[in-house]
């Protein structure tokens, strides 16, 4: 792989990651959000594969396959099943409006670029240049966690946060050892499965997945 092609591929994947992150915040329909998350997962897998092929690491390519299966297919499918068919009740009503969210995203991206200066200095080349995107994804995920009411959105925020962490890890250090990556992926899968069961129970009990209604259970 030529250096130019490598740089362009890495930049493309990072761009897709950032774009899907912004779109997840922008869209309100839950099914669309889950689809965007699947696209993000695929982009992440491609990024890992590109890094692996460039560095001639078959191990990393295997990890890329794992990421593709888990984040590109399994988790979105599970989430989609929880979200159910499209309908009027499947729309997120965020705590802050879309415009304010998008402005916040811009600020967070700026922040991510500002604070990742030392990280970029640690490496060089196209991967180091993409590190701020991973950090921005972490911040986007946190924003979604803090401002969305729906349980599915919360899960999406959590997964986006994890995508960001994984992206930063692959971009800086060429990934973590396979065993750790396997463990982390398994954890993620378990979290989502448990939450799937939990949201099913919540819906059965309360007929809705709005977390604000759950706070009434206190006292």
């Amino acid at each position: 792989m030529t250096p130019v092609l490598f740089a362009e591929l890495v930049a493309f994947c990072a761009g897709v990651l950032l774009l899907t992150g912004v779109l997840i915040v922008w869209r309100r329909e839950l099914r669309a959000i889950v689809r965007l998350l699947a696209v993000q997962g695929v982009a992440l897998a491609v990024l890992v594969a590109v890094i692996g092929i460039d560095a001639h690491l078959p191990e990393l390519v295997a990890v890329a396959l794992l990421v593709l299966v888990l984040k590109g297919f399994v988790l979105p499918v599970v989430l989609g099943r929880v979200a159910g068919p499209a309908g009027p009740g499947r729309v997120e009503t965020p705590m802050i409006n879309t415009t304010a969210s998008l402005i916040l995203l811009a600020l967070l991206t700026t922040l991510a670029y500002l604070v990742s200066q030392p990280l970029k200095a640690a490496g060089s080349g196209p991967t180091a240049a993409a590190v701020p995107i991973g950090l921005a994804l972490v911040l986007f995920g946190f924003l979604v966690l803090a401002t969305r009411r729906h349980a599915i959105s919360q899960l999406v925020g959590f997964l986006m946060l994890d995508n960001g962490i994984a992206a930063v890890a692959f971009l800086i250090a060429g990934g973590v050892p396979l065993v750790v990556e396997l463990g982390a992926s398994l954890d993620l899968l378990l979290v989502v499965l448990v939450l799937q069961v939990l949201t099913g129970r919540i819906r059965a009990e309360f007929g809705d997945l709005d977390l604000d209604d759950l706070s009434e259970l206190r006292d």
Partner: protein
Amino acid sequence: MTQVEVGLWAQLVLALATVSVAVLARPALRARLAGVGAAALGVAGAVTGVLALTGGQGRLVIPLALPVDPVVLSPTPLGGFFMVVAGAVGAVAAVYAIGYVHGPSASASSWAALATFLLGMQLVPAAADAVSFLLAWELMAAASTVLVLTEHRERLEVRSAALWYAVMTHLSFLLILLGFAVLAAAGHGTSFAAMSHVDPASASTSLAFVLLVLGFATKAGIVPMHVWLPRAHPAAPSHVSAVMSAAMVKMGVYGVLLVVLQLLPAGRPWWGLVLLAFGTVSAVYGILQASVATDLKRLLAYSTTENVGLMFLAIGAGVLLRSYGVVGPAEVAAGTALLLVASHAAFKTTLFLGAGSVLHATGLRDLDRLGGLGKRMPTTAATFGVGALGAAALPITCGFVAEWALLQSLIHGARPEDRLVAVVMPVAVAVVALTAGLALMTFVKAYGIAFLARPRGPEAGTAHEGPATMRVALVVSAVAVVGLGLVPGIMATAVVRAVGLGGIDVFGVAGLGLPGVGAALDPVALTGLALLVAIPVLVVTWRMARRRPSRPVDLAWGGGGVRVSPRMQYTATSYAEPLSRVFDDALRPERDLEITHAGESRYLVERVQFRQQLEDVVEVRAYVPAVRLVDRVGLAARRLQNGSIHRYLAYSFVALIAVLIVVSL
């Protein structure tokens, strides 16, 4: 393995055995088995203490799972003295409890907590480093909190009392922790040996001293941190109050002695003044509140504050005099603190156990409704009387010996050449004299109102003596009061070894000599002399009385004979009325006078209603506003915690962003 180590192991094993027995045994057998176990635990503590006092060495290292240094137990002679006190009091109280416990205090958790409490208390003076000390201290504090809570279902005030106790005891823990932390940082190590190498003149040492003294004073019930005492003692079962008052508060005194004798022996003069000031205020305030209290156990609790105040006064005088080079009286004063500890342990055990018997028989603590118990409960009356003599510091009891030694050291410590000492010592003497006088009135009231005259209520009229174990424990503790008073030589030997200073020795066969100030007291000889003088007088009086027609005494303390109604007798409140008038400004009683006039007339009165309530001034003026402030802060802080998951997530989000910004700067 040395004897001391065997003793320490025995305590650990016995405590474990007692806890298991308390949990596993059938309810019918529980009191007997667990009581015997707890008593054995106390005896083991006392024996280990004696071994440590007589020069026994031993070092027990118990590794912990926690990432801290192992627990090191290695009692010094000073610690040994306090182990003897704690163990002996614990053993007597455990025997008493076998007959006394009923209802919730007979439960498995209560017995298990008692064993844990005794173990913690006996290990505090054995600790050889700050971490072990704090662990044992916390064990003692937590177990005693459980014991105070014992009757929380029956009486609502117990919960509030336990809350006060838990807060104050943890405040004490926190202060001690901070004090030890400062010392450990300065001395580069948590062992007491490392801490004793710090520079006594440095500011951090003074800070550590202040923190440690405040912490220990809180546990010891020194004014103004005494507020938990008059609440916790009436709330706890009587055998627990006895142990708490006679042994646990002494651990505060042990802590102060540890600081001024072992950790920071080269004290500054103002340290002595601080201790003296604490002691003086507590002694006077404590006995004043006791003299007007009508709740028997509350009275005893305030009397504890007074006695601990005297101990602090003695320690303070010792530090002050030593720093001014007045060696003899300084050594006597330091030793006197231990005499006071031993004597207070003896008579306060007797008094609390006696109060427990009264409570057991009548269900009452209110003196105004008691009376006439002397005839119905002769053992309790006699032993409580002995204890009252001790608390009033009258001769042939240990209280007298201790206060005599204290006055000797204070009087001989006054040196005209040092202006400060010349002023402080006479003031201290006056304070001790005032407290002795007030203590006399207080205990005349406690004994006279409860045990003499006629019953003031139906409960007192049907009272009966408790089971044999209760009476045995009462008699043992009363014998200790008189025994230590008659042969104070035993205490003198122990004190000399514990303090490691001169100034006190055995005079004659078993009397108390104070070569530091050139005084001596031999109670046996004095008693013999007094009897020699008294016998002829008694004989003559008896002969003269036989010649005259006999005067039947129908009712002692009846105030002139059998009245129409028992309610017309003197009560505790009326007996204390002159005192509460004299000390009106200090006590600030709340009086409420309500006069209802008959019809329209201004001159004819239909009804006069008078109410008087005595509250703790310190509590009302200092603690109530403080608690209100904390409440307000707490309510404001609750707004941060509204239970919304989004708010909590937003907190972490903002925190993350803040950290990122700080890192990138």
